[in-house]
């Protein structure tokens, strides 16, 4: 078994790195600093950390105000409250004026587990992706989360970066190239292209192994940047494999699967099977049971791949 680390932990590490490099980096949190890992930044840079209390709408616009004065601002809380509560503040004040606010949220997706539906964000990618100027990043593991955080700080304008609560396998390495907007091909393949993000990437790699045994040669693509999506890689692999599966820890409505479908349906229509929750809320449970319940296991991904291949 490979090393396990939560993506939120890597975010916390990256903030410290950023804080050392640039005195204009400021971090805001909404009473969840231990959970989101911004507490690490607070320890190192108490003068540049501000707890905004349980007031997410205010937090976003305070970040906007700070950014107009030259600050690079990270705002953190749970994904649902980071994007849902202050959506209109993000849309009208941050994104409209293309301000340097990085919304970096933890506890995304169904794997939040025991807290149940009120804390399981399955719509956040959709509601961030729809906003002009907003970039959306869903890193697959800790090293990628670290790099995504560092890079987002260096690119002007708003970002939504989505982290998870649970420890997930480390599948990339510190030295791997990473560039926002450039998908990474983790496994080449010609029969079907599995495009995934977040912790679904390691499950997709497992699915590809299962398929390999059946003689199905699946490519696995880590689509860490959902917006702007890497259309070059999408075209290349849709053309080669002619069958696509997407996998995300999010609703199939509006997320990665939708983004992939939107592009391919206009340019290179091939079957696209989507793994994700299907127009439903979550519930309490341990992550493993929940992933099973909502048909998001490696086996489910493999099954979708078989279907996609059979459609060719």
């Amino acid at each position, binding site marked *: 078994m490979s090393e396990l680390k939560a993506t939120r932990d890597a975010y916390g590490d990256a903030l410290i790195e950023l804080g050392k490099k640039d005195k204009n980096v400021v971090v805001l949190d909404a009473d969840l600093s231990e959970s989101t890992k911004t507490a690490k930044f607070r320890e190192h840079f108490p003068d540049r950390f501000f707890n905004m209390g349980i007031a997410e709408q205010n937090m976003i*616009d*305070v970040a906007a*105000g700070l950014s107009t*004065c030259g600050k690079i601002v990270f705002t953190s809380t749970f994904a649902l409250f980071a994007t849902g509560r202050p959506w209109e503040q993000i849309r009208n*004040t941050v994104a409209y004026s293309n301000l340097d606010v990085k919304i970096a949220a933890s506890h995304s997706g169904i794997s939040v587990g025991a807290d149940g539906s009120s804390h399981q964000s399955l719509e956040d990618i959709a509601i961030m992706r729809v906003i002009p100027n907003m970039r959306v990043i869903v890193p697959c593991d800790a090293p990628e989360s670290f790099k995504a955080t560092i890079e987002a700080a260096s690119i002007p304008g708003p970002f939504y970066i989505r982290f998870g609560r649970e420890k997930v396998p480390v599948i990339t390495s510190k030295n791997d190239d990473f560039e926002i907007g450039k998908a990474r091909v983790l496994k080449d393949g010609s029969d079907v292209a599995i495009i995934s993000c977040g912790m679904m990437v390691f499950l997709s790699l497992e699915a590809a192994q299962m398929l390999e045994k059946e003689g199905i040669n699946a490519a696995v693509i880590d689509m860490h940047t959902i917006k702007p999506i890497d259309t070059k890689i999408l075209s290349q692999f849709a053309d080669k494999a002619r069958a696509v599966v997407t996998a995300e820890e999010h609703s199939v409505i509006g997320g990665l699967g939708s983004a992939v479908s939107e592009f391919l349906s206009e340019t290179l229509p091939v079957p696209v099977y989507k793994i994700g929750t299907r127009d439903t809320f979550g519930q309490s449970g341990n992550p493993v049971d929940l992933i099973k319940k909502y048909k998001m296991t490696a086996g489910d991904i493999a099954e979708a791949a078989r279907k996609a291949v059979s459609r060719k």
Partner: protein
Amino acid sequence: MKYEEKSLKRKAAELRIEIVDMITRAGSGHPGGSLSAIDLLTVLYYSIIKVDPQKPDWNERDRFVLSKGHAAPAIYAILADLGFFPKEKLTGLRQFGSILQGHPDMRKVPGIDISTGSLGQGLSVAVGMALAGKIDKKKYKVFALLGDGEIQEGQIWEASMAAAHYNLDNLCMAVDHNGLQIDGKIEDVMNPSPIEDKFISFGWKVKSIDGHSLKEIYDAWNWARSTENGKPSAIIAKTVKGKGVSFMENVVGFHGKAPTKEQGREALDSLKKALNGVK
């Protein structure tokens, strides 16, 4: 800067003409809340705030947030008059391709520090600007203007709490207390009073003034900018919506409706008379 009553009076009268002219031409816009706010803004921009039309992005400048963004014509008239952009642009208000959008756009208009239009957000932005000033130990002040209906937004109170919590005595806020919103009197729609007590209990220092007395406004902005006792300051300015145009004064209908051409002419005639009468 010194208080010069006559020149401020003249300026406010000129700006009222500009506002009514702009909105009449555009055929849409918000005359009521622009006219109730213009005395507050005239005193602020011509005798208090430190900004430089030649260097709109000057780091040390005072900031201004028009949280009630629908009063855009008022700030546009001022910024044009001060030379932030050519006066000819004023005729483009709300037109296709114009820099003067229906609500202020910081990416289009030099001198606008933040885009607004969605009510309830500006005070939070001002808190962010004031916080940045504290982090960087800068001397600049942050001014903000809110509507009295706008303070029904819950976010205003989140921001108020944060401003006091972080001791933002570099934050100077005024409420344009004209008593009206779109659906009627604020006290009938959703009564925010007692406004003064609310801000006091949130940890602010508060001053109530007549929002059309230039001297009182001048003293209040000065009080707000000069006291440094760890508290943000709030000016509750009693105003008249539509002030200066008799048929608009206290008329709810002129919140977001332009005068007809005929009404516009009538309004401009009386405003010009008022300007000539300034002693």
